[in-house]
Each structure stands twice: as structure tokens, then as C-alpha cells.
């Protein structure tokens, strides 16, 4: 396939920047969490692009591990969000400023 690696890196950078904007701007904790997933996705895209350029499958293996760790992270993070919602009745991250329940 004839796509230059630079274009893929550009797309990856744009998606990563959008994810950072989501983390910084939104205050709904679930949307912030989804923006983190978007950033992981952008990093995966860069890894795949580099793996193709270097003709090395290690990039694919790394992306596989990133996806597995993201699944673990999402399960724990969403459980935390549910627990915070039970105690504070809100998932506005501005109000979650203390660790005590």
C-alpha cells in the first residue's frame, strides 16, 4: 500500500492533539476517559506506521499489549467512576477534588 509514513504520523498527531483537548476541556469524567482512549488509539496508529516502515512485527505485538492494558484500565477506571458517582452523585471532575468519600 502506497501511503507515506509522514501522512500516518500527521493523522496520529492530530488525533492525539484532539484527545488532549478533550482531556483539558471537558468536565464529564466519562468523556475525559474516552479522550484518553482516543490518545491511546493515536499512539497505536503511530506504532503500526513505524512497524510497517521498519518491516518489523514488534510494533504489532506492542499494539496488542497496549490494547490489552487499555481494556484493564477501562474496567478499573469505570468501576472507580461508578463508585465516585455513588458517593458524590456527580461525575463532574471539578467536584472530585478530594480523595475522601
Amino acid at each position, binding site marked *: 500500500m502506497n501511503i507515506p509514513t509522514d501522512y500516518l504520523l500527521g493523522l496520529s498527531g492530530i*488525533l492525539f492533539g484532539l484527545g488532549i483537548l478533550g482531556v483539558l476541556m471537558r468536565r464529564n469524567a466519562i468523556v475525559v476517559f474516552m479522550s484518553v482512549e482516543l490518545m491511546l488509539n493515536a499512539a497505536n496508529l503511530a506504532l503500526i506506521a513505524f512497524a510497517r516502515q521498519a518491516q518489523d512485527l514488534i510494533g504489532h505485538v506492542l499494539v496488542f499489549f497496549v490494547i490489552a*492494558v487499555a481494556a484493564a484500565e477501562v474496567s478499573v477506571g469505570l468501576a472507580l467512576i461508578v463508585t465516585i458517582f455513588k458517593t458524590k452523585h456527580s461525575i463532574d471532575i471539578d467536584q472530585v477534588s478530594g480523595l475522601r468519600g
Partner: protein
Amino acid sequence: MTTDLWVFLGLALIAVASAVSMLVSRNAVYSALFLVLNFVAVAVLYLLLNAAFIALVQVTVYAGAIMVLFLFVIMLLGAERLETGRALRWQQPAAAVLGAALLAEMGWVFFGGAGTGSVPAALLGGAFGSPAAVGRLLFSDYLLPFEVTSILLLAAMVGAIVLAREDRRRREGP
């Protein structure tokens, strides 16, 4: 302009547009669905890049399992529209400025002198990135990390259950 480049441009447009829509939509359910669209577009891009196995993992794990978990939690909490009021007035402009600065820096690194240059696609065999090739690598050189990942997933599952369950002892106590 070859066909591949047009397909890439279309997919990139879909991915960026869905990411922007995810950021600006007020309803969290719409955000989650736009993120699914983004993941599927990137998965098709992986297919173009000789990464068939990763594309399938992306669709099943990311767009399937993880986003279904997100949608479950959003609907369980009824947290579709919980953004009201504005506590920090300077937050959004500051975020926009910082994000734009980071994007400019990344553009400078990628397309400035330190970039990779426009490398034409390497000639890859048909087996590159196939499930058989990636699986062979996973079960030979990377067997230990693979098993550690399974322990990590087990720990995450136990942790999620411990965090999210009702605390019966405290409720029945004095």
C-alpha cells in the same frame, strides 16, 4: 494520486471528524458512538497498512468490548448530560491554547527537519501482519509478557468487582 491515497484521505477525514464530534457533542452517548466510528475508521486504516490481526483486535476489543462497557456505565449512571455551569472560566481558552501549542510542536517534529521524510511504502510480503505471523511471535519471543497480560486482566477484573460492589457489611452494621 493513487487509489490508496484517496482511501487514506477519506478514512482520515472520517477519523478526525468523528473525534471532533466526540469532543463537542453534549450528550455522552453520542460521544461514545462517535468514538466507535473513529475506532472503526482506524481499524480499516490498519487493514490498509498490512495489520489484519491488529485491525480485528481493534474492532472486537476496542469498538466491541470497551465501548460497550462505556455505554453500559453511561446509561447505568444516567450521565448523558451532566455538564452544567462553568466553574473555571479560563479553563477552555487555556486548554485550546495549550492543545494548539502541542499540535504545532508535533507538526514541527513530524514535518520539520527532524521528520522521517516521505518514505515510500516498503515492499512487504503478504504474510506481514497476518494473524499467523503475529501469533507466532506472541507465543515464542513474547510469551512471558503475554502471560503477564493475562494476570493483569485478572487483577483488573477482581479490582473492578471489589470497587463496584455494594459494601454489605457497612450497610448492615450499626
